[in-house]
């Protein structure tokens, strides 16, 4: 075991800091000069009307996009152009707005894929699937079974996920992200398209993950009720700019936020 190359953070320390980040695609500005931070152990919501740049923000954090300006600090270190696999190695896991699962693979295999980074045996043993490779497979399988129990999806372990209803797919995707034992979990609309019951289940899982594993969570969500109940702090984006940042009840009363959501009389 090598020593961790980053300081061990206590609850409440800044885990990720977004500083003056801008992102442009040609002439279109998706984000301009956005700054906020995510503290260790909190649930941070990113909200805003459609096209506000929320998903672009997540994509910057997890390395799919590189900010054209500004910088992102993770665990006290500035990251320059970082590839998604490096972000994953650093402990950032995510789910996607329109579920991105390995559709042809079973629930079990999907979540096992989340353990990819935890498994190290070389090509040789892998080829014969014996010795170290087999031991590693078994150890990781135990972790995955734990996650499956936690998310209450035992009954669909062997089902190809492409055949599952949407709500369950979202849950499997959460499981795959959890399998990475992330420092920071990014959830892009975890409850989109769910009915009330499914939303309640998902909310419970998110809270449990946060409390039991101490995982820091950043989530994008449109359901204001859910956001207000779950999150510790909320950042509000509109047209790529930050218009509010603070505790849910403060944000809710903010005139600019109300205008952004309801429109202003001109």
């Amino acid at each position: 075991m090598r020593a961790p190359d980053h300081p061990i953070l206590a609850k409440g320390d800044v885990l990720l800091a977004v500083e003056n980040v801008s992102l442009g695609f040609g002439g279109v500005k998706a984000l301009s000069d956005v700054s906020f931070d995510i503290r260790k152990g909190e649930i941070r919501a990113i909200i805003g009307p459609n096209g506000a740049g929320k998903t672009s923000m997540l994509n910057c954090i997890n390395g799919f996009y590189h900010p054209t300006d500004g910088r992102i600090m993770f665990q006290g270190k500035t990251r320059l152009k970082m590839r998604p696999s490096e972000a994953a190695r650093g402990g950032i896991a995510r789910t996607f707005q329109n579920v991105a699962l390995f559709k042809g693979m079973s629930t079990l295999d999907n979540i096992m894929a989340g353990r990819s980074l935890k498994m190290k045996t070389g090509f040789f043993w892998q080829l014969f699937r014996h010795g170290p490779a087999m031991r590693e497979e078994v150890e990781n399988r135990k972790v995955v079974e734990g996650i499956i129990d936690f998310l209450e999806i035992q009954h669909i372990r062997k089902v190809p996920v492409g055949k599952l209803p949407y709500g369950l797919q979202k849950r499997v995707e959460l499981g795959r992200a959890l399998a990475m034992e992330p420092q920071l979990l990014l959830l892009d609309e975890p409850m989109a398209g769910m009915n009330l019951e499914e939303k309640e289940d998902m909310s419970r899982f998110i809270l449990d993950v946060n409390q039991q594993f101490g995982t820091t969570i950043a989530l994008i969500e449109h359901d204001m009720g859910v956001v207000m109940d779950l999150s510790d702090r909320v950042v509000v984006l509109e047209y790529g700019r930050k218009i509010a940042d603070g505790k849910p009840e403060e944000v809710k009363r903010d005139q600019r936020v109300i205008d952004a959501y309801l429109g202003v009389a001109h």
Partner: protein
Amino acid sequence: MADSAAVASRKPLIDRRVTKALRVPLILAGIAILLVLLVQGGVIARGNLVYNVLVDPFVLMVEAPDLLLQTLWEGLVAGVLYALIALGFVLIYKASGVFNFAQGIMVVFAALTLVGLHEKGVPAFLALGLAIGVMFLLAVAVERVVLRPLVNQPDIILFMATFGLTYFLVGLGESIFGGNPKVMITDQLFLPRGATDLEVFGGRVTIQHLDVAAAVIATIMIAVLAVFFQYTRIGRALRAVADSHKAALSVGISLNQIWVVVWFAAGVVALVTGIMWGARSDVSFALEIIAFKALPVLILGGFTSIPGAIIGGLIIGIGEKLGEFYWGPLLGGGIETWFAYVIALIFLLFRPQGLFGEKIIERV
């Protein structure tokens, strides 16, 4: 309640799956009986075209079972080797969505490297190891020079890039090893020669030892690869990449590493294919043609299925030999070169996605 129970208990006499599976054999049997009756009744006279096509070959099969067995065996061996080539295509297609036109030339290039090194005085097994090393270097080079710069380009661009790779490898191979056909170093690799005659059904079936070795090695190779891709981390990562690039990236799978792995695996498959086909003929650039025999196999098996490649290979191999031996003479022989494509075409009419092609599950 009573109604629903009654509905549930009203099962068909024979399970529907059974009837479905039996449908084709039953239809064939029906046609056979009809033909026998027609021949007996004198409607189809011996010697006319219908008789020659539909009756005579089967009569021959029954009358000379040893010949049938010989043909089936040869078909089996050819089929396993076709499956091996198809496997090279499937691996790369699964992971990167690229149809690798260069697979054929990779077979030639790998075999030439092996024989060429041996000609320069390298011991056979060291040459084998070095040839594997060369295939690895090729995989790394392809990933760096071809795939990485073209990532996110449309598939057709990548397809065209593999054309470029083909011509590059032809040129490179010719300039290093020359264009003359070479002889595969069969003995030095301890591949058996000679043949055994088996007495069956009062006739003789000749079995080439090399064919047995080829079938065994190819089978082992296919089995190891199948297990590898089904049950290991790298295999899972590979299937993950095939399913969704962004999801694979988000769990920390490196596309570049996976591409090297699949191209290397395809390179090793190409080397084994090159040795086996090279031992049956010569090692020359003409071998590239056999890669196109993989096309009908892929059409049958689907581009993404390893079991599909195996079964497709066997159907094409056996179908081709049977066609050549029993129906070939009607057309003056030599139908082997194109018969596989006809089989594939007929299949396409009924199952456009192939036998085992991935069902596209899509929610609207």
